[in-house]
């Protein structure tokens, strides 16, 4: 992950009990900016405006929560995740 992108992120953690789901926690003051960038690049499938955005990018589906958390599911490994995050936030 590039340092410019890392600047958006507080923490990345695996979810308890749910196989390959990964939660990316964004910095609070960067989350709106991140959402703006993501919405330009990812495809919006469904939304409760201002609360949740159900999105896809390439083969990955993920949900962006207004609280600044993104859940990625089915991501193969950390390298793939980093590549997707870079593509979305750069």
């Amino acid at each position, binding site marked *: 992950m590039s340092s410019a992108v890392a600047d958006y992120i507080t923490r990345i953690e695996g979810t308890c*009990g749910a*196989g390959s789901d990964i939660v990316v926690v964004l910095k609070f003051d960067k989350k709106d900016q991140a959402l703006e960038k993501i919405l330009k690049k990812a495809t919006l499938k469904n939304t409760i405006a201002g609360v949740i955005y159900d999105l896809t990018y390439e083969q990955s589906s993920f949900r962006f929560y207004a609280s600044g958390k993104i859940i990625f599911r089915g991501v193969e490994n950390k390298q793939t995740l980093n590549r997707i995050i870079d593509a979305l936030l750069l």
Partner: protein
Amino acid sequence: MVDFYENNNANVHRGVHTLALEATEMYEQSRECVAKFINAKESCEIIFVRGTTEAINVVAYSLGLNDLKEGDEVLISLMEHHSNIVPWEITAKIHGFKINYVDVTSDGLLNIQDFENKITSKTKIVCLSHVSNVTGVVNDIKKLAKIAHAHGAIILVDGAQSVPHMPVDVQNLDVDFLVFSGHKMLSPTGIGVLYGKKELLQKMTPFQGGGEMIKDVIFDSITQSCNISWNELPWKFEAGTPNICGAVGLATAINYLKKVGMDNILAHEQALTKYAIDGMKNLSKVSFYGSIDSNKCGIITFSFADLSSHDVALLCDSYGIAIRSGYHCAQPLHQIFKLQSSARASFYLYNTIEEINRFLEVLQEIQNF
């Protein structure tokens, strides 16, 4: 706690100055308070620990030092929190005793028949939760303790989910050990309780050594070693400086809970739970886990069709509602439920019907998503 740190803060059982004596007095009064709260015979049966997990580790490691050996068996249920599984698995590998697991029914109830089948004369200790942290189901501990004792076994009860929510009387239940955490009952984190019957605690060897837990450490110049004798109960099991302020905070929380009344707290939680379940039954995408009709505390475990538990929790979080997601440190029970994870709503004395209504509105919104 602020008052303690501002006016009485010192280490306990060491100094003779006024602050040390005041701190010691408050710490030991807290022990008395806990003893009365669970109706222990004596306050020396109350050991302060960091929480439920440490309490179980104390028992598992201490019994392992002298009492559990190859050929012995420990009986645990599959509904246990990992903290009541892992310490036994670790010590079993060290000391060679065997662990047997009691099955749980598909609706999350302890399989009593299986319990009776698996308890034998080899069973030295039975370890069960009083209330499941996943389903809120209440086990009939009095009955299970009777069965355990009839087989010559002792019983350790994980009261992390019962002591904060209902009246618990160790003499009435006739349990040998009861463990619970302060942070689940309005108290600060890092303080918990190991209750043990005096005669058992007296026989047990402490597994943590240090200051406070010893009477004498006398160097023998001939053998070039130290002769050590243990302190009396309860200090024998409290090595090092304890969480003094935490104990004071726990006692303050207990006094508050007692003022509200544990019967009232249980009734309030059960009313909220029933109200929430009735509302959630109207949501076609919601599935419940664990019996929703049996005797249970304020816990509802559920899932939403097409959504992971983490999505449900994050959606609720977006509306300011905090629920847990994951397997709640009870993976074996989730295996029985054939689940990767679940969402869990839990209620306490401070929750209201208005909050449940809001929760139900949010769930409706999630269903529409």
